[in-house]
C-alpha cells in the first residue's frame, strides 16, 4: 500500500490527496478495533491525569507534613500518605509526569537516531554501512542491563543534580535502544531501494536527498509509527527498572520506578502496600494500554505483520 502512495503519484497535489485518503482509511480501520481504541483512551487518560490532575490536588506543593505520616488510604488522602506525610496519589501523578516524559522523549530520541542511522546505512551501503552497523553490532553484543548499570553509576559520579538526571536517563535509554531500530530500518531500506519505483527515481535523475527523504522514508513511516508506539512502553519499563535500583532518576524527584523502591524497606513492604503498589499498577496499566494500542496500529498500518 505504501509504495503505491509514494510511486504512483505524479504530482505534488495528487500525492497529498492519495496520502490523506490512506491515512483516513487507516483511522477508519483503527476505530473499528475496540480493544485498540480502549488502549488509546487509557493512555490519553493517564497522560491527562498526570499532567493536569496534580493541579486540582490540594497537596500539589508536595509539602511534608509530619503529623500525618504513613496514613493508610482514607477520605482526605485516597491513597494514603508516605513517611514524610506527602499525599501518595499526588506523588503518583507527579511521578507519572516524569516517567511518561522519559518514556516518550527517549523513544523519540532512539527512533530518530535509529531511523536516521539505519536509513543512511541502508541507502549508501559501503563504508557508511560498515561503520554504522559495526557500532550497532558492538552495542548489541554488550548486555544492556550491565550497560545501563554502568551508565547509572557514572551518572551518580558526575554529581548531576537530581532534577537534571531525567534528561541523562533519556539519553542513556536511547543510546541502548537505537541499534535494533537501526537494523530494522536498514533491512527495510535494502529491500525498498531495489524496487521499481526507486529505479524510476534514478531514471528521473533525482538526487540522493530527494530519493531518501521524499521516496524512501515516507514508505517507512507506517512501520516507524508502530515501532515508536511500542517503544514507549519498553522505555517506561526500562526507566522503572533503573530507578528502582537507584540508578535512574532519584529522590526527591518521584518516578514510578523509584516510588516502588519503598518496597525495599521491610516494614513499608509488609505493612504499607499503598506506598508501592499504586506506582507499580500505574506502570502496568500504562504499558499494557500502549502495547494494545500499538498492536492495533500495527494491524492497520503494517498489514504484512498482521497476526
Amino acid at each position, binding site marked *: 500500500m505504501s509504495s503505491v502512495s509514494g510511486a504512483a503519484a505524479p504530482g505534488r497535489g495528487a500525492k497529498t490527496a492519495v496520502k490523506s485518503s490512506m491515512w483516513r482509511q487507516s483511522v477508519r480501520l483503527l476505530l473499528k478495533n475496540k480493544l485498540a481504541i480502549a488502549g488509546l483512551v487509557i493512555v490519553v487518560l493517564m497522560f491527562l491525569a498526570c499532567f493536569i490532575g496534580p493541579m486540582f490536588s490540594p497537596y500539589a506543593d508536595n509539602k511534608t507534613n509530619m503529623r500525618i505520616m504513613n496514613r493508610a488510604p482514607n477520605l482526605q488522602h485516597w491513597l494514603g500518605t508516605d513517611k514524610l506525610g506527602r499525599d501518595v496519589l499526588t506523588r503518583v501523578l507527579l511521578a507519572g509526569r516524569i516517567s511518561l516524559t522519559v518514556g516518550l522523549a527517549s523513544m523519540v530520541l532512539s527512533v530518530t537516531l535509529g531511523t536516521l542511522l539505519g536509513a543512511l546505512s541502508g541507502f549508501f551501503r559501503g563504508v557508511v554501512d560498515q561503520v554504522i552497523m559495526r557500532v550497532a*553490532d*558492538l552495542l548489541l553484543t*554488550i*548486555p544492556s542491563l*550491565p550497560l545501563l548499570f554502568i551508565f547509572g553509576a557514572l551518572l551518580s559520579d558526575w554529581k548531576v543534580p537530581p532534577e537534571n538526571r531525567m534528561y541523562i536517563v533519556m539519553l542513556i535509554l536511547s543510546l541502548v535502544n537505537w541499534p535494533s531500530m537501526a537494523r530494522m530500518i536498514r533491512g527495510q531500506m535494502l529491500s525498498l531501494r531495489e524496487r521499481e519505483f526507486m529505479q524510476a527515481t534514478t531514471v528521473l535523475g533525482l538526487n540522493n536527498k530527494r530519493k531518501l527523504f521524499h521516496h524512501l522514508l515516507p514508505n517507512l513511516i507506517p512501520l516507524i509509527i508502530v515501532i515508536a508506539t511500542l517503544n514507549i512502553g519498553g522505555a517506561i519499563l526500562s526507566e522503572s527498572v533503573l530507578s*528502582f535500583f537507584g540508578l535512574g532518576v532519584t529522590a526527591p524527584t518521584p518516578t514510578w520506578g523509584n516510588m516502588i523502591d519503598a518496597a525495599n524497606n521491610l516494614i513499608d513492604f509488609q505493612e504499607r502496600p499503598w506506598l508501592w503498589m499504586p506506582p*507499580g499498577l500505574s506502570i502496568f496499566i500504562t*504499558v499494557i494500554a*500502549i502495547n494494545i494500542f500499538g498492536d492495533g496500529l500495527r494491524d492497520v498500518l503494517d498489514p504484512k505483520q498482521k497476526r
Partner: protein
Amino acid sequence: MGAYLSKRLSYIMIILAAASLMIFCLYAMTPGDFISSNIKLSAERKAELREIYGLNRPVLERYWTWLTHALRGDLGYSLAQQRPVLALFNTYIWNSFLLAVVSTFFTWVIAVIVGVVAAYRQYSWFDTLVMIVIFGAMSIPSFFIGLFLIKIFAVDLHLLPPGGITTTGSNAVGWAHVQEVIKHMTLPVAVMTLLGTGSLTRYFRSNMIDVIRQDYIRTARAKGVKESKVLFGHALRNAMLPAITLVGFELPALFGGSLIIEKIFNWPGIGQLYIQSFGQRDYPLLMGFTMLIAILTVIGTLLSDVLYRIADPRVKL
C-alpha cells in the same frame, strides 16, 4: 557452510575483542574501586593495595593484562571473595541454570499449547482472552510482579518462602532438601514463566495461523485425517520450525541468570552475584560476567542462524 562458519567466527572474535575493550574501559570509568569503598583502610594502605592489585596502572595496560590472562582461560581472582572468578561462576551459575531451565520448560509447554489452541480458534472469546493475558504478561515490570507475589503468597498467606534457595539455618539433606528448594523456587519460576510466556505464545499463535491457512493442511483434512493429527502432526511441526531459531537466543538467559528476578527473590545465582559485586566494584568478576553474557549472546545468534539453515535448506547463509 565451512567458509561461512570461519567468516562468522572470525567476525565474532573481532566483535568480542572490541566489546571487551569497551566494557573494560567503561568499568574503569565507573566511580570508585574495590579499595576506596573500604573505610577502615588508611590512605597509605589504600595506595599500597592499589599498587599490589595494579589498580593504579593505565587502563590499557590493565586491559592487556586482563586479556592475555583471559585468553588462557584465567579470568582472575574476585577481589571481594578471594576466589577465582571461574570457580565462583561454577558455584553460582548452576543455581541460575536451575531457575532458567525449569521456567523455560514451562514457558515453552504453555506457549505451544495455548498458542495452538488460540490460533485454531482465532477470534473466539478464548483467543481474545489469551491476547489480553499476553499483553498483560508483556507489560508487567518484572520487579513489581515479583514483589507483588511475595507480598501475597509469602507475607499475607504464608504459603511460600519469600526468598533464598533454602530456609536460613536449615541443613536438610536428600529428599527434604529437594522439597525445600522446590518450595523456594516456585515464586521465581512462576514470575519468569509468566514474563516469558507472553511473547512466545504470541509467536506460536501467529506462526500457527500462517500454517493453518496453507494448502497442505486443507489436503490433510480432505484426506480425512483426524483433526488432532492435522493440528499437532501436520501444522504444529511446521509452525515449530521457525522457533528453532529461538533456541539460540535462549542461551544467554539459560546461563546468564536474571539480574532482577534473582535480586528480588534473593536467589543465590549469578545475576545476584553480579549486582552484589557491582556495589563492591569487584572488577574481575564484573568483567567476567559481562563477557560471559556477551559470548553467550554471539554464540546464541550464530547457533540460531545455523540451526535455521539446517531446519530450512531454502535459507541461504
